[in-house]
């Protein structure tokens, strides 16, 4: 039971990597990258979890009540937002590629010739 979260993280990482390797489309590849990224979220949150503890927020219960690790939550929270912006940057790269080369299939891209 207690290894399921770690297995889920490993599975997300490998299935995302499989998607990257077999992708025939950069938009698909970027989607797979975010799957790999979410593996790190699952792993981090699993490491910081404490059985039976609550959220590390003491607005409605007094400080000192058992709470999970706030550090990993802070890491994940900032990365979700920043990761979304980085994904948008990658998608705009794919957009420019489509405009300039007419394809976003990595296999059809040949080195540019001037």
């Amino acid at each position, binding site marked *: 039971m*207690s*290894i*399921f*979260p*770690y297995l889920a*993280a*490993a599975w997300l*990482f*490998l299935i995302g*990597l*499989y998607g990257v*390797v*077999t992708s025939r489309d950069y938009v698909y590849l970027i989607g797979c990258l975010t799957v790999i990224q979410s593996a790190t979220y699952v792993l981090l949150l*699993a*490491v*910081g*979890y*404490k*059985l*039976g*503890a609550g*959220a*590390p*927020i*003491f*607005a409605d219960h007094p*400080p*000192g009540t058992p*709470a*999970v*690790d*706030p*550090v*990993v*939550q*802070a890491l994940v*929270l*900032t*990365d*979700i*937002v*920043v990761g*979304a*912006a*980085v994904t*948008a*940057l990658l*998608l*705009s*790269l794919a*957009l*420019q590629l489509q*405009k300039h080369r007419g394809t976003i299939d990595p*296999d059809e891209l040949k080195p540019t010739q001037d």
Partner: protein
Amino acid sequence: MSRHIRSVAFVVMALILVPFIVAGLSGLPAFGNYPGPYGDIINAIGTPVRHITNMVTGVNYDFRGLDTLGEEFILFASVTGIVMLLRGARGEAKSADALRIEHRRREGRSEAVMGAGRLLAPITLLYGIYVVLHAQITPGGGFQGGVIVFGAVLLAYLGEGYSVWRHVAHSTVLDLTEALGAGIYVIGGLIPMFFGARYLQNILPLGETKTITSGGLIPIINFGVGLAVAAGFLSIALELLEETRATGGDGS
């Protein structure tokens, strides 16, 4: 390299990788047994020494404030990259001029979508601002609240149409707001140094716990992050929506 060889290579490499993953994971503490002590210490001292009740915010904007500065600039660099890639390729003049698209057609929008957008946009905006301002008390903060504010302005796009949205999300205003947000963080961190303290050290009055002014420096730089995130995501949406206009025509 053919697709077949690539798939075989992946399977081989994945099989080599699996023992390393298993070895790495087996060295971790068992699930549900967080060993501490870093997180436990922060949970214990956050309220007495910083007058905050949301420890995640405490980690982000105080105990590890410098790391969040780095994250903020990753966001800033991504937005700058997107604007350079898309607006740079399209030309500056066309992006800045909102009047050109005054009569962009409102095709494909049902009245239900418009009504829902108009109804939900102000409520969502208010909620987003609430989430930003209560960062140090309840779940929330500049990152989450900034994204909710961004969502509210996108709902205004659904409710009011493209030209109104372009007047709200004006690229110059967004650029300035994002720079202001990042500037508040950087300069807010410098202020303690004028008083002989370290960068981002929290020397401001801490205020009363569970009020929106509590936490000293935390609400200030948190607000900066909220501004930067909302304006940054709006810049991204603006540039991406402009792309659809450039290729698909504006219908005017």
